[in-house]
């Protein structure tokens, strides 16, 4: 019976809460010991009383601290790719299941690379404080974007979040871990001052017969996955609920082909990738069509969000 309850309780707990005194908590206990010695020395009964009250307060603080992080439920969202050195905004849904607000929640991050070492507490110094959650109202769910720092392009394994709190009086630290178990693509950092290369002279007439472009409006077609978001006809959607994409014709037919050779004069690979990334973004915002030629990969000229992602992904994973 009891065992059943215990197991059910264990199942309900999605995470294990750890609790340890902070250094203020340690000083607090030293304070109590010193005061108790004084009270004993002076045979002061009320001095004992005060010491015991402080012991009681510390004990109660432990329960409150535990409760404050215990009754939290979380759901991790999916992290979207970002450019290097921009933070990954990891969506985190926090639900306060208790009838009391949850306060002073700090979120820190441990990159997966530094999760080693036999002494678990050593990791504590490696946690990077990221985010101070505002007070979570009772029985409410709120969405928080946790800015996880990035510094390398390519796939990044997201490590572990530590949700901790020193609530209520800072003597104890309660925390639990969330293993993110996701990897997120980090695009190269868009950087570089080289002007766009001249428009491509290559005419690949076969695939681009109708000269899709961006300059002149040429009518609608039904939305297809990958169509640029800024071309969606929102007004039309509001009218009849059908998702359409505006089509433009591009009489000039500006097509860009970014070639690895165009950036050959830049000193290192990262700088080259950054420059290419910069060009892709410029072309994309301008609504141009573009393609990419990398030493071992060629991406044909196209446009749209998916195409952009494909190009950037090739850059991000270049050489990996």
């Amino acid at each position: 019976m009891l065992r059943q309850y215990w197991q059910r309780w264990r199942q309900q707990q999605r995470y294990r809460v750890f609790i340890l005194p902070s250094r203020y908590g340690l000083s607090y206990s030293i304070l109590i010991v010193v005061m108790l010695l004084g009270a004993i020395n002076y045979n002061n009964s009320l001095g004992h009383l005060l010491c015991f009250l402080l012991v009681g307060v510390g004990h109660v603080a432990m329960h409150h601290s535990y409760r404050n992080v215990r009754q939290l439920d979380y759901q991790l969202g999916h992290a979207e790719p970002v450019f290097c050195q921009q933070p990954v905004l990891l969506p985190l849904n926090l639900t306060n299941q208790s009838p009391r607000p949850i306060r002073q929640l700090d979120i820190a991050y441990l990159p997966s690379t530094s999760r080693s070492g036999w002494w678990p507490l050593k990791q504590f110094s490696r946690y990077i404080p990221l985010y101070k959650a505002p007070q979570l109202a009772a029985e409410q769910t709120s969405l928080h974007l946790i800015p996880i720092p990035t510094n390398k392009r390519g796939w990044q394994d997201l490590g572990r979040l530590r949700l901790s709190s020193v609530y209520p009086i800072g003597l104890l630290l309660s925390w639990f871990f969330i293993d993110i178990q996701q990897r997120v693509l980090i695009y190269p950092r868009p950087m570089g001052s080289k002007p766009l290369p001249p428009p491509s002279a290559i005419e690949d007439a076969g695939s681009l017969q109708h000269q899709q472009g961006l300059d002149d409006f040429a009518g609608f077609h039904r939305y297809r996955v990958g169509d640029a978001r800024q071309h969606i006809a929102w007004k039309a959607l509001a009218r009849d609920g059908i998702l359409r994409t505006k089509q433009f014709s591009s009489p000039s037919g500006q097509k860009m082909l970014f070639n690895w050779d165009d950036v050959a004069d830049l000193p290192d690979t990262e700088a080259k990738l950054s420059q290419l990334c910069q060009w892709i973004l410029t072309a994309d915002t301008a609504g141009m069509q573009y393609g990419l030629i990398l030493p071992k990969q060629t991406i044909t000229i196209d446009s749209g969000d998916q195409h952009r992602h494909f190009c950037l992904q090739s850059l991000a994973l270049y050489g990996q």
Partner: protein
Amino acid sequence: MANKRSAEIPSTSSIHWLMVTLTIIAIPHFFYQPLWVAAIFLLMMGWRLMNSWHGWPLPADKRLLKVLHSIGAILTIVLVFYSYGITIGRDAGVALLTTMAAFKMVEVKNLRDVYLSCFMGFFLIITHFFFNQSIPIVILMLVNVILLTSCLITANESDSSIKHRLQQSTVMVLQAMPLMLLLFVLFPRISGPIWGLPNDAMDIPDSLPDSMTLGEVPPQNSAVTGMADNITIGNISQLIQSDAIAFRVKFDNNQFPERQDLYWRGPVLWHTDGKRWLPLSDNQKRYENGSKIHVAGDAFSYSMTLEPHDRRWLFALDFPTAYPQTMQTRLSADGELNSSDPIKQRTQYQLSSHTEYLFNPQNDPYLQYGLNLPEDRHPRSQQLARSLLEKTPTDQAYIEAVLNYFRQQDFSYSLTPPALRGDTIDQFLFESRQGFCEHYAASFTVLMRAAGIPARIVTGYQGGEVNPVDQVLTVRQRDAHAWTEVWLPQQGWIRIDPTAAVSSERVDFGIRDLLPAERRSPAAIANNDRLVELWQSAKNNWDALNSAWEMWVVSYGPDRQMQLLEKLGMHQPDWEKMIRWLIIGIALIFGWIAWTTLRLKTIPQDRVQRFYQKFCLKLARYGVVRQPHEGPEDFSRRAQLALPQYQQQIAMISYCYMHLRYRGEALEDDFIESVKNFRPHR
């Protein structure tokens, strides 16, 4: 672990809150400490306030101010040494702590400093108890701990409202109380001191002097309780100014002796130079086999709770026949009960006494001391003794004659007698004829010795007040008394109270009735009998509460702990048993607090909601857990698929619920009924 947080700058509001708290904690000390302590404290608080209100620079902002601040702190330390001497005693320590807390307040700039200040605050709270251990100061302690806890809350959460921080800290302190009480009762007490105590570790109220000097008129407005230096030479009339408690007595089975037998025996005085009366010197004093007591009647058993007086003597109802077991005591041959160590803390002991006794009826080792009178003193008194002796055939008759002399001449009892000059005894007996116990006891003894009857003065207390609420007899310093004992062959030492001859009220009703009315009740109500009565009963209750407080809380030490635990049914308590019960108690309190804090479920007010939750819970037990994103319809569909054998019931309940929620039709009872009947099994 939290090292990154320590650099955080505390908000102004949290610093203000801390300042208010520390000031409230420090205020009681201002009454005991010299004025400059309060001045420095308030000066520093003012500086910090001016910084936050008008942007005045703090020591951290300017090098010059930093230097000034440090110099100020050093000068304060020097000042403490200058005022209190080089050894840090109680008062010096408190002065130092108070001022240093104030100096620290000005330089608080990060979380670490806030914690340091709060911890100094906790220390300041405990120092209150060196001066005062009353109920109000403990209530103040609770308030102070609540305030300091709220400071810690604010330090970590600067945007918390005053209401929240006070509410939170009050809840915490209240929840902390069960553990506090448990530890207070069961934590094995060690009797201190572990290391030395400073000389001023406690206040010693007035106590009986160890000698008596006639004719000194005490200053009228002397402090009621003073420090140790005025107890070496005092006199009894000074004590009559004091309402301080000397000791409390609880008679077993509430069997009280007669009022006129309530003589509490203390030091015995023998030697006199005509003015001063002194006890036997240490090498004259004998202890073993010095006294033979023959008793009659029943013994009175009682427990005494003696307030500290820093002397060795213990008081006992005249005459003690069984001695305390709990402490080392001995009875001297002249009937003084002495402890082996000075009484430096409130002490309790169990005694029993007989009020009918014969003390050394055959012989006494000190008879010759009881006859000594200084030569060439008291000529008129000697003359009187001789003339009375001629008229009386026996010693008894002589004693009666002297007492009659006091009764018949115009002697009167006065707490404010005129000053005596010259031969004090003669002056009192033949001129002023106004005085109190001391005067009568001394002159009576002189008259006895002049007639060759051995006599001595016994000092102690007479009477006391029984509180009707708890039946505890309280003896105060104002009950101090002096009487005489004369030795007669075959009868031994007989107590004779010459004061009673002059003022029988003093003995029959106690000193209280002789005090001016404003000492008995506040002047404002003294004219209204009903109010006086009401005031008296309130006072009795308060006194009973205080007496219980002092016996069971303030003087709760190793002995009291054993006593209490035995009363609570612990057989032969020792620290192992205490620890065992302590662990059990802590586990219970842990469980209780965990339960109160973690009670997670909020019970919805709405019945429909409540029963729908019950339904979800029943399904959850079989693995069908409603997800937060699932509406009742989706959930019902999924549940029906998962538990096909209950498809109908699930559909029915969900349908009813949605109906009730969204259409408000009166299916409520059906819905609740069907949830109750829903009992899924695998």
